[in-house]
């Protein structure tokens, strides 16, 4: 289960949703909404997900997933400013001497 585009961090699988409405309370930033009265909730405002995972824990049917991998256009990594790439960097670090 995933958000195929990964454009936004949150994904709600409507097939698994039992329409309990708990996500409507869980989300601090109001990501979830019913388009029309009587509809199941959707991630109408998915771009406002701030990756807190409260909805994941509160959804009793496991219909919601949140990923860390979606882009955050409001945060720029200082390592991107420096042009640093981390491919294999952390894994290779342990070959160095333990500083302790």
């Amino acid at each position, binding site marked *: 289960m995933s958000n195929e585009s990964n454009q936004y961090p949150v994904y709600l699988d409507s097939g698994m949703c039992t329409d309990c409405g708990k996500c409507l309370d869980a989300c*601090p930033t109001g990501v979830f909404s019913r388009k029309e009265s009587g509809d199941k909730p959707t991630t*109408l405002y998915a771009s406002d997900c701030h*990756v807190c995972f409260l909805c994941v824990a509160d959804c009793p049917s496991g219909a919601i997933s*949140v990923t860390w991998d979606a882009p955050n256009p409001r945060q*720029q*990594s200082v390592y991107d400013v420096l042009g640093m790439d981390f491919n294999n960097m952390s894994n290779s670090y342990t070959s160095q001497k333990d500083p302790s």
Partner: protein
Amino acid sequence: MANIQQHPEMQTTEVEKTEVLVIGGGFAGTWAALRAAEIGAKVILVDKAYVSRSGASTMSGGITTCPLPGDDLEPWIEEFVVRGDYMCDQRWTRQLLEGQRDRVADLAKWGVPISRNEKGEIRRFSSRGMLAVKCMQYDPKLAMEALRRQLISHGVKIIDRHCITELLTSDGQYPTKGSVSGAFGFDIKTGQCKAFHAKRTIIATGQISMKGIHHVDNDTGDGVAMSWRAGARLVDLEFSFGGTFVTLMKRYNLGSYNVAVAHGARLINRHGERFMARYDPVRFERSELSRVVAAFVKELQNGNGPVFIDMRHCDDAYWTDLESMAMTGGSTVLLSGKVPDPHVNPLPIEATWGFWSGGRGGVEVDLSCKTTLNGLYAAGATAKNPATGTHASAGAPTSFAMNSGYFAGESAAHSALVDTFQPLVNGLLEKLAFQALSPMMRETSQQTPDELHNDLSKLGGSVFEAMDCHATRVKTLLVRTKSIFEATCVVKANSLHELIKLHEARNIAENARLIYASATDRTESREQFYRSDYPDIDDDNWFCLHGVTRTATGDIFERIPIQLESFSIKDRTKKPKRPSPIASIFAGTYEPSHYE
């Protein structure tokens, strides 16, 4: 979707009367409401999200100051005062620690999970920046759930999902010459306007922050901005800059840096050097965050990056607590497999530096959490925390939230019970309804509320630029902030959801302007406040609180003396005029002994 043009009846405001109104439902707001209700006041608590799933309290790292019966609090008080550079009200420091014993007992009584040792005793550890002061680990989400249950059982009326846009004033003026008499807002789901007519109002909407950086996107400094508009004095706003280490591997949220370093995590550079030893050979990466972030920047500037967080030294309790909190909180990236196993791999980490006031700057309050405006109280990170000075240690923001809420609720309830309602001024509700909802009636605009938040999030720039508030940079930022604020006055909201974000953008822009104006006015550097054009600490002119008040003729800045002679810990040595800690770190001349 609700549309104001299709539903003009939404502009008819419903009015609810209450003795005590609390705005914001984190630790401060819920404790304020609970205490006020215990005393017998009729209480309404209103929040723009759902109380227990709202704001920074639920998503905090779950550590708070933990004094227990039998502890001698004198060394704790002294450490808070000295580490806070004596820039505090020591009566508040004592009140905070004595009160916190009771708050911890309350959490335990309500069944909130608290990390304990094999004997069943609360497991305590030194909080970041401290040696004597101890804190504990608890589950913040379950603490907030317990508080919600307590509120309901004490008859507090909780009104979730209402966006408060303005305080009510007794004369209808902003700034007021009278008092605060409640607040105005709208129902996020329907757009129905609602006024809360109150004898006493407690504002507890959290800290000054902005969206996208800290993963607490509904902390937008609403309470600080509303209090300022009504005329309350704010203090030390330039100290609202703060640093945190939140980002792993360029994109993943660590969770709490404070918790990790309290349990043994270290910062090392790419050579494996624990570089904080050069700056603080006692507390290392548990030092003041401003110094740790400055040292981080220096390491990168010197080509020693990336900086890693090395969790191979974390104790077992850290991993056990992390797993337990991930179960109730939803997840943690450290245990997710998304990053190399942190038990054996140091992970690249980075600092951010931006608006993250954490109680270092905000609405001025006294011992009872009264503001300078009659009828208005402030609690939690909306208030400037007078208890801990320039250094809010790990655990201090939550303990201040819990206790300032408690004392605000107590004082507000006692005074409300012997007072009468101020009448509402004719025409005020109609004016506020128009202000609240008119962005939905505007012509189509070029920008969206989201784009305004994008612009706001870019104000600070990278951590290399963000720490320096020199005049040229801040002048440019003031121009950009003014431009964003002006845009909030013309941008259209296409839905109620966008309307909230537009009000939030307006509040952030207003706070940003005041922060930059305060930074311009302060012609020195001190702890986390640094400007390269005034790099020295200047005790002669700036050992004080720095107030700013809105008046009919503009902002008034004041320097409010700290009455050290009236406190028990008064032997502060005047600091020689020399570069501040950040200035010294950047200059490569930092000597730890100069700043202890």
